């Protein structure tokens, strides 16, 4: 999708073009859903948040001024919706942030198990990646999101800091804590590292196609 197309689509949405907004939903629903899933950790909550995100976009698209890219704007709204939801559910995010701030030597490591996907959901697709997802879901939401923003969505520290309203130092610190926590979990899992290793060795050696083929993507 070219930038020009996107700009046109957005301006049509601003004018109240129903069809254009449908197209916009189509274009962004997967991205929003995936971000929400990573933050919320399960299908049900991710669905609710995704729906809320599009409502917010619908209500406020006229105020989008193009100062950031549209997808960054959408990301921002998604994160806010999910954070609101997590916050309203418990004071969890605030508490954990507060606790982190209280320690003098950087942030304290803190893991709280989040909701896991339904068991049926876990094994139906690529098992390895799903097991990884389960472990990621067990991370504290603050760590989970930030790790995925960095490693999966390839956002820069600056972009993450801007989106979450954190300092770069905090972002780095949190990402590193997340990496440490995830590595521990994977080691504790037993076989997972070996399997991941095998996967990437195959890819590196160029046998039988790359990881994409293995994952069926």
């Amino acid at each position, binding site marked *: 999708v070219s930038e020009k197309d996107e700009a046109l689509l957005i301006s049509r949405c601003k*004018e109240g073009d129903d069809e254009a907004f449908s197209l916009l939903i189509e274009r962004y629903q*997967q991205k929003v859903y995936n971000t929400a899933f990573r933050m919320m950790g399960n299908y049900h909550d991710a669905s609710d948040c995704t*729906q809320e995100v599009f*409502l917010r976009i619908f209500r406020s698209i006229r105020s*989008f*001024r193009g100062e*950031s890219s549209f997808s960054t704007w959408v990301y921002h709204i998604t994160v806010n919706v999910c954070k609101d939801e997590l916050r309203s559910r418990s004071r969890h995010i605030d508490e954990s942030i507060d606790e982190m701030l209280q320690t003098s030597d950087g942030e304290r490591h803190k893991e709280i198990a989040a909701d896991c996907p339904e068991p049926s959901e876990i094994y139906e697709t690529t098992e390895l990646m799903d097991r990884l997802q389960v472990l990621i879901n067990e991370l504290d939401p603050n760590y989970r999101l930030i790790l995925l923003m960095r*490693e999966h969505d390839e956002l820069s520290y600056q972009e993450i800091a801007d989106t979450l309203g954190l300092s770069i130092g905090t972002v780095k610190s949190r990402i590193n804590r997340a990496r440490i926590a995830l590595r521990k979990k994977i080691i504790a899992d037993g076989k997972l590292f070996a399997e991941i290793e095998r996967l990437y060795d195959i890819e590196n050696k160029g046998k039988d196609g790359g990881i994409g083929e293995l994952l069926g993507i």
Partner: protein
Amino acid sequence: VNCLEFKEKIFAYLDNELEADAARQFRAHMAGCTSCREEVRQYELLQNAVHDMPERECPEELSQKIRAAIEAERNKQKVIPLYKKPWMRTIAAAAAFVIFVGAGSVIFENIFAANSAAPESQKSNITSDYDIMADSDLVEQEVVSSSATGLFSTAYSYTADEVTSAAPEIAEPENKKDNAAVNESLMSSPPQEKPDAPTSDEQKNSLPANAADTPVSPQSPSELDVPMPQAPAQTVPASTKEELERAKAVANVRLQVSDTKQACQELAEIAKNLECAAEINADGLFCIELELLDYDAAYKAICEMKSLEEIEKFISRDKIGEMEYTVLRIWCE
């Protein structure tokens, strides 16, 4: 570099943030230390694996739910525009000024939604559709019940441009002059028509120009002045009192009209003078949306109107993404 120092630098290494010298030392240590090499390897694998986690398909049922929710929102927001002036093309940004009218209470809600990127969306002429608000009792009921709760919590984002014109153009109002005066008195200080020491009743009488010229129902405004709970801790500063009274009077001009069509016309007239869109939304609340040149201009206008130093306490800001609402709420005594 020993193992401890090495471990401290792992993430900087993974993020390519080590200076050339430090990176060289790091690699040297890695080459000779199996356990450190293994650790780095694991982090690298982890990075790769997380990066390659497949995207989930958005479930079809979710897709449908989103569409249904948007459709519901669309219907909810199908506000009925009574009048809308063609937008000025030069408007770089817009600010919305919404007045909710409650019996015995006046609540202003300001929504400043800067909107510099949508000049084209601002050209449409909006016509009106009376059907949706055929039952004026309902409107009044809504207003009364709203005021009974004392406050509104919703900030309305405006969707005037979305409204499709399904109905005849609204009749040209006849009493422009008087409404211009109303406009003046709302918009600027000092206002032209500023009664000395206005009381609530005087105000109601001093502003009926609008109501009097049109076939207003005999309903007394007092009928609408149902007792309402005092809004929490809303001591209105003396300096803003006049403004509030004036606003209340203007509001009452509209509320006196029991005839729906008439109400629409009157709202339209006032809206025209204010260069704004007056609408009755689906919740049955009257509101006026005032478009201003930009956020600062809007803010300034509001401040001027409300005797500056007291304004802050009435304004709260909320931010969603890039959008900033400013909500101004005022309760009359």
